[in-house]
């Protein structure tokens, strides 16, 4: 497998870096997108975006921003998965595909075990799963399953909150009684935890859920565990936060960071023609860009197997697989070093971008 290709044909790595720098340097408004990288890769990519007065976006920004929007315009109670495992006496899983969004979820939350700390230590843990995917909930023995389609989730949460507040809902007596029973379970929890993923819960539903958490906290203790987006989304978001003050979908066109989830959304930037060159980074799994336009100069940093036939491709290693990587850990809710599981000598994203940056003429645009 070649380490770099141009329109599918092998080129020398040094030439690839120089060519990448030339493309980005020549663009009016270059885009650094995908951003599937570890913390070091994200740092390098955001620095490059700043140097180029371009914009950066992450491939899972929609999900990340769904949570962030609630956090920054409403507020959010969260805890770590570890805390939920240790103390949660009532765990409510919301929506389908949670085990897909976080493959280690069931192992980490240990739902079948009793909580070890807190008022309900050693008491059986109540587990409720609303709207799981097919057989998903079978992996949690004893879980009470409330069937609901993904579209119905927001309405279910609204009805819970209405009944928790003692307000009426336009439902039959039987359904109201069921909801009231469920709400009573929530009220009686001593350390309740909602678990959700923004990949299946929209920002308004998350706001509804968090509003319910606030109201529950007047009566007991309740909190949430949100499952972060794919391709290192949480770590990249943290990195963007400490570097620019903003999450991804931030641009440096005017020399200072401006955050605008609409303006700097990568597909819109490319399809509108406003971005006239793109650096696509997807080091975890080689996910492809979602935009439809194929005529702008494109540089791809991805693992070997995902070499595109078009544009410039530079092979990079996988964070935590081919090289050690600092990543946001869903398990602990903090940054952790993940040792390489199969060390290899492909450059990391940070190294590849460092090499491109070395070729970018400093100050050309200042």
């Amino acid at each position: 497998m070649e380490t770099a290709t141009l329109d599918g044909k092998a080129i020398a790595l040094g030439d690839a870096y120089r060519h990448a720098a030339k493309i980005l340097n020549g663009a009016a408004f270059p885009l650094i997108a995908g951003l599937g990288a570890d913390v070091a890769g994200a740092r390098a990519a955001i620095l490059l975006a700043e140097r180029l007065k371009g914009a950066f976006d992450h491939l899972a920004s929609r999900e990340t921003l769904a949570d962030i929007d609630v956090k920054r315009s409403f507020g959010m109670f969260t805890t770590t998965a570890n805390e939920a495992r240790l103390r949660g006496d009532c765990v409510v899983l919301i929506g389908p595909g949670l085990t897909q969004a976080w493959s280690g979820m069931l192992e980490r939350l240990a739902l079948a075990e009793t909580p070890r700390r807190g008022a309900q230590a050693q008491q059986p843990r109540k587990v409720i799963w609303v709207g799981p995917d097919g057989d998903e909930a079978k992996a949690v023995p004893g879980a009470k399953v409330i069937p609901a389609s993904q579209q119905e989730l927001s309405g279910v949460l609204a009805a819970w909150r209405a009944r928790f507040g003692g307000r009426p809902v336009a439902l039959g007596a039987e359904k109201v009684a069921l909801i009231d029973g469920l709400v009573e379970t929530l009220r009686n929890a001593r350390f309740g935890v909602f678990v959700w993923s923004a990949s299946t819960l929209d920002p308004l539903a998350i706001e509804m859920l968090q509003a319910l958490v606030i109201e529950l906290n007047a009566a007991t203790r309740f909190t949430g565990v949100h499952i972060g987006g794919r391709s290192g989304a949480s770590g990249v978001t943290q990195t963007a936060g400490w570097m620019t003050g903003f999450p991804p979908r931030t641009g440096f066109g005017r020399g200072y960071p401006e955050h605008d989830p609409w303006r700097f959304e990568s597909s819109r930037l490319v399809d509108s023609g406003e971005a006239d060159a793109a650096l696509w980074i997807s080091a975890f799994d080689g996910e492809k860009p979602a935009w439809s336009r194929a005529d702008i100069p494109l540089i791809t940093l991805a693992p070997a197997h995902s070499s595109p036939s078009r544009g410039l491709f530079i092979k990079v290693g996988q964070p935590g697989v081919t090289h050690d990587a600092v990543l946001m850990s869903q398990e602990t809710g903090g940054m952790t070093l993940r040792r390489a599981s199969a060390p290899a000598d492909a450059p990391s994203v940070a190294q590849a971008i460092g090499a491109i940056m070395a070729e970018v003429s400093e100050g050309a645009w200042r």
Partner: protein
Amino acid sequence: MKPFTFTLRQEPPQRVDLSALTPDRLAGKSVAQIEAIEIGVTRISTKVGDLFKVSEGELKTVRFEGGSSRFDLLGAKLLPGFEIHVEGDVGAQCGRLAKGGRITVDGNAGPHAASGNLGAELEIKGDVGDFLAGPLAGELAGMAGGRVIVRGKAGARAGDRLRRGILVIEGDAGEDLGARVIAGTILVVGEAKGRVGYLNKRGSIVLARGGCFGSTYVDCGAHELTFARLFARSLRDHSAPAADLLSRRLRRYGGDTAVYGKGEILTAD
């Protein structure tokens, strides 16, 4: 007296920030000074003179001959007593944080039109993008005053966190109309798709067509409402279809009961 006019020479290759081109901010500047105002938002400089032919006129009204979906922040922070008219489209955040005055757009407007509006009157003859009158990312409240009339259709999340003022959408409204509304009034003469009024606190959402609003909106019956008559009179000259809608007997759905149950969706009975 003829208005101060900007005539578009060519479609800009990048977005431009037109917030500097409101009457109060142009006052006291020569044509040469105005032509030198930087409106670009990328590392490629774009000046007013690169994009527009500037012809002086009375600075009560600013007129744009030719628009573009890349004209962002047009009429931002407009002050009472001034007017801006656009023969064409505008981009994002048209009329953002306007304190008063009047903005008319002959074409379409992008997302976040009338965002944070404090008292201006906006009339968009075409369609508008998402988040009409809504807050920007991270802001706590949406439009706080003024009147917005959209003759065409609106995108998703129109009226998000509306606090005060009136929104009229004569065409259809996209998903999640009137979500998180704090107060104020939204009227849709066309169809409202999907969820309506999710997390509505005390706002009034008036729809020409009924529908199912989920279990947290509760039917409170059809009524003659005096406030609707006053509203109809006030709106008659600005939107006859909206005034007609308000003149009908209205069915009141109280909600969102998930919040306080003190808002409402009113539908023509």
